[in-house]
């Protein structure tokens, strides 16, 4: 039972070669670039979307933080497109693999911390202690804040993995249960309705991407600005 529940999440291999690389490289094919001023409809829609994302994300940053705009925009586009493509039947979602999310989370978080320590070392270190704490509590609180700092990349990665995996698994289970109940016609409509609502709620995978980039954003802002 264990093997059959999680088979949709196995990395695809063909003759032992990881075909997951092909799946990860597929979303950029859907996002064309253009040198012209007036483009086709696909490019117009995508450029509008990217401008919206950029304006939404980058207004709160100062000049130094805005050097990150390319990185963060490509991050949110990648995660959004990968998660949405994973909603198609039989497709493989790379973001369900914890290895990939850790590979995304740890370098980005570490670079924000490194940037804060490099340019504003004193201010970054004083972030470890909230204002107005009573003196006896200081050592314990510093330890707690350090732990909460180091848990940030882990939380970023595990949040994304767990959300996407749980959503896919739930859809798979409910779908197979609806199929089994097809012989018994009674709760069929109720279950298919649940599947439909679950799918629309799952399309807030985009909300999850927002959450990912926003939390990353918050840490960048905090380390960079104040």
């Amino acid at each position, binding site marked *: *039972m264990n093997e*059959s*529940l999680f*088979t*949709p999440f*196995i990395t*695809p291999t*063909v003759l032992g070669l990881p*075909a997951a690389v092909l*799946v990860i490289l*597929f979303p950029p*094919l*859907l996002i*064309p670039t253009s040198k012209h001023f007036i483009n*086709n*409809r*696909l490019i117009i829609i995508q450029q509008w979307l990217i401008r919206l994302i950029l304006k939404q994300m980058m207004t709160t940053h100062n000049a130094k933080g805005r050097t990150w705009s390319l990185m963060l925009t490509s991050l949110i586009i990648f995660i959004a497109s990968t998660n949405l*493509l994973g909603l*198609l*039947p*039989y*497709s*493989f979602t790379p973001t369900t693999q914890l290895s990939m999310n850790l590979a995304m989370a740890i370098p980005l978080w570490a670079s924000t911390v490194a940037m804060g320590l490099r340019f504003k070392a004193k201010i970054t270190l004083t972030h470890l202690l909230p204002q107005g704490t009573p003196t006896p509590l200081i050592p314990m609180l510093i330890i707690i804040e350090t732990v909460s700092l180091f848990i940030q990349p882990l939380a970023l990665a595990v949040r994304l993995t767990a959300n996407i995996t749980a959503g896919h698994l739930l859809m798979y289970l409910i779908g*197979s249960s609806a199929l*089994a109940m097809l012989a018994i016609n009674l709760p069929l409509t109720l279950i298919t309705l649940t599947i439909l609502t679950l799918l629309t709620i799952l399309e807030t995978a985009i909300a999850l991407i927002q959450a990912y980039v926003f939390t990353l954003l918050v840490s960048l802002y905090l380390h960079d600005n104040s």
Partner: protein
Amino acid sequence: MASVVPVKDKKLLEVKLGELPSWILMRDFSPSGIFGAFQRGYYRYYNKYINVKKGSISGITMVLACYVLFSYSFSYKHLKTPAGRSWAISEGNSQEGVV
């Protein structure tokens, strides 16, 4: 038979059946050649369906449908024995054991 145009430069639909092996052997199979073939194929599709004045949603829907079929063919091996059915099969063939 001598052709007017060399075999190498003809497109696939214009090559005669007898010349097909020599045509295949003369194609460029180096990495840059294969990449060039993918690039030509990509731009052929792109310029026909997407880069037009009034492109519709079918341009990208065909790509997604091909992606679904491609993923299905990859996961066919895992899907051959469905999850809840192996015990049902063994009920019928009790002499042959579990599938």
